[in-house]
């Protein structure tokens, strides 16, 4: 008896749930229109100091955040930042969790199949990092045979290692700073990362490690530089972004911001 009551209650609940869903649908139904950008949500993987990292208050800070804020001022939009794990960052953009990715993402052909990129806004060569005790500068594939090299997964660094260092044991980590931390712990022989990320880490860790060699980046793996990623249908937002980048280049504010953080020229071409 109780069961029959429960089952009929369940049926009633299903019907009510269906009606509620339709009600929700009515709320969500909106005529499609050209998007006027007032707020732009930016997805960032904040594990990449000094470009983006999380501070003690839980805020996302770094050069790329400052640069984004400057660009948003010129685009006349309000920008908010969302922390998103690197591995899922492009699917999250496509699923609509945010409107652009500005997370030191290199412009590469496989990524261009899924998203559209802005103009490149920095170019920094990748480097091999090793422990301070390793004085050799030899990074040929032969000398790396059997060594453990770490880097962040789903990155151009990982693609590079997999293509050119088949004899080495490659370890992939979800965060951008994790390989360097593991190197400092002695669990890795080398890591591959951006030159600036490496020097920042080495400074912060009081010289645990050193830059062993700079990599001459093949264009098909590393691309022309770092850009912001947009959904393919958001060409208008991308155009706004490119315009703001050009403005900041022209009036010298890019150089001022970059000089505040970096000792080398990162603008690239």
């Amino acid at each position, binding site marked *: 008896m109780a069961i029959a009551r*429960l089952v009929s209650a369940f049926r009633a609940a299903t019907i009510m749930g269906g009606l509620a869903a339709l009600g929700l*649908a009515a709320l*969500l139904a909106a005529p499609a229109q050209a998007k006027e950008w007032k707020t732009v949500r930016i997805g960032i993987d904040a594990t990449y100091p000094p470009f983006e990292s*999380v501070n*003690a*208050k*839980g805020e996302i800070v770094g050069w790329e955040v400052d640069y984004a804020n400057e660009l948003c001022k010129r685009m006349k939009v309000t920008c908010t930042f969302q922390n998103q794990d690197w591995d899922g960052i492009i699917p999250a953009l496509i*699923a609509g969790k945010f409107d652009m990715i500005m997370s030191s993402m290199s412009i590469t052909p496989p990524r261009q199949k899924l998203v559209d990129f802005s103009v490149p806004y920095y170019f920094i060569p990748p480097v091999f990092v090793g422990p301070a005790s390793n004085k050799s500068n030899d990074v040929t594939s032969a000398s790396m045979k059997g060594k453990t090299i770490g880097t962040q997964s789903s990155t151009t660094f990982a693609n590079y290692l997999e293509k050119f260092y088949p004899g080495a044991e490659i370890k992939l980590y979800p965060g951008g700073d*994790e390989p360097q*931390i593991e190197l400092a712990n002695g669990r890795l022989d080398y890591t591959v990362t951006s030159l600036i990320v490496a020097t920042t880490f080495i400074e912060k860790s009081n010289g645990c490690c050193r830059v062993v060699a700079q990599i001459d980046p093949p264009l098909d793996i590393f691309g022309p530089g770092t850009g912001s990623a947009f959904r393919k249908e958001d060409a208008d937002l991308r155009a706004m972004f490119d315009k703001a980048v050009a403005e900041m280049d022209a009036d010298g504010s890019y150089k001022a911001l970059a000089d505040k953080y970096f000792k080398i020229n990162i603008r690239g071409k």
Partner: protein
Amino acid sequence: MSWYALLFGPDGWSGLLLKGALVTIALALTTVPFGFGAGLLLAVLKMSPSRALRAACDAYTTFFRGIPDLLALFLVYFGLQALIDKAGRLLGLSGHFELSAFVAGVIALSVVAAAYSSEVWIASLAAVPPGQGEAAKSLGLSRPQVFILVTLPQLARVALPGLGNIWMVLMKDTSLISTLAVTDLLRAASEASRATTRPLVFYSAATALYLAFSLVSNLAQTWLERRANRGYA
């Protein structure tokens, strides 16, 4: 920097850790009514005369007890979102309903907690003599009154130890949501340890906080069990 400065100094991370702790507690507490309530419903449905309904409930519990909780979380987060998107498209909507990671966490953990707690509820339902319900009805109590005043207190006495166990596991499972970029206690600790390269300081702090929750939970459970066992030898 000393561990004290890292936590409580002007640039200390204790604020972030405490915010994460609140998220963890909120997630665990929000899951309890849905998870244990659904578990009770499941237990009652499993006593249904309909073979199909019993089989469906058994399939449900076997499935969610058989896969890792992390997998259940991913299935809910990505699968439910995809279902919502598809339903929206089928209904011709252009709006986008976003399933937040916290809500997905609540749903996933409730679904798993329901599966586990249904077994506890079944055992406790069997422990309440049917004569109790009959006697209560003969006294003129309505169906809901019978359940709340007579059945549930006796159920609770048998179910509490098992449910308390599931609660402890649930509280730790909340850390799985850190994989979905929700800043719970574990993720706050890991963000802090990465930014400062001092993992032990922050993971120890997180340990202390989780143990504090366990201690409070234990005290609460002891108190509840003592109340439920009033009148029993």
